[in-house]
């Protein structure tokens, strides 16, 4: 149960708001203070891909066969059609079908 101490609750809330906002701005702020040479430039270029790959791979592995077939369908549609909306739709449809089949 959340404690009925209203003051404590608002202290936690204010702290959480501040901490979460700092995580949102700190990376942007910090990179702006660096002199961006070719090495840092390459690292920054590689960053979106590595974040996205890092997010997806454990989901893919832990999600079992249902996640595997659904996300494979997304990848295939994307490779051949290059339309992300349909790729996501195909993934969700396959996931729903796999759920119905008990995967």
């Amino acid at each position: 149960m959340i404690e009925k101490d209203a003051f404590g609750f608002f202290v936690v809330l204010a702290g959480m708001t501040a901490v979460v906002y700092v995580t949102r701005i700190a990376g942007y702020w910090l990179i702006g203070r660096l002199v961006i040479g070719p090495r840092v430039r390459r690292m920054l270029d590689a960053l979106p891909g590595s974040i996205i790959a890092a997010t997806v791979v454990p989901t893919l592995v832990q999600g079992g066969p249902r996640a595997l077939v659904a996300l494979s369908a997304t990848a295939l549609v994307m490779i051949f059609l290059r339309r992300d909306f349909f790729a996501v739709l195909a993934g969700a449809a396959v996931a729903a079908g796999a759920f119905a089949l008990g995967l």
Partner: protein
Amino acid sequence: MTSPETTPADTNPDKADPDNARWTFAGFRRGALDVLPFVPGITGFAMAYGTVAARKGMTLFEALLMSATVFAGVVQMVVLDSWPGTLSFAAIVGILALAALVNARYLMIGATLRPLFGGEPARKVYPTLFFLVEPNWLMSLRYYSKGGRDPAHMLGGGVAMYLTWVTMAVPGFIAGAAVGNPKQFGIDLVMPAFFVAILVPLWRGPRRSYGLIVGGLAAFATDFLFGGFWYLIVGALAGCLAGVFNDD
């Protein structure tokens, strides 16, 4: 395109070329429309949050206030889940450390926005970053890769996600456990599917995709060995370092 009389380029350079217009309502609207595919997923998550908040004994006002100020689904869920019996000073520090750890991936996400927003005024960029979440990050990366240049795109997507996140906690709070199984319609996989869809065009052959490969492998290994939230941070950092070796 137009005569100088109708478009005084010397007084307002942004208006001179419509393709370069910044912070426009059109860009905001486009960003809001681009995140629409995420609305069902966020709605399900917000309802689940509302349900958990109700079960934990929060008032509706407290639950919505947390959504409106923190605006970070995973952080809110994890903090509610681990709420201490008594709010000692140490417990508060623990909660805040947990919040920072869970959201640490945004340090890296924020860094990717520097090349996009670096030329924009700080007084506009920093308030916009309050609304930074994964859906509008993904959609804005895509929008910029297709040549879009209006930062209002990110703001529009963020505000749309914000309104969905805050308001959709209400039915969850009221209905309690009546939230259906999101797996039935594949809603739980919409976000990972978007990640995969964005990943496909980012793949530029093995010799130019070391970041992607190393990031994925490092995240998998970390997740396998340690669990928890570390996989994202380790994966993103490893991939970022490996990116130095990408061919140009």
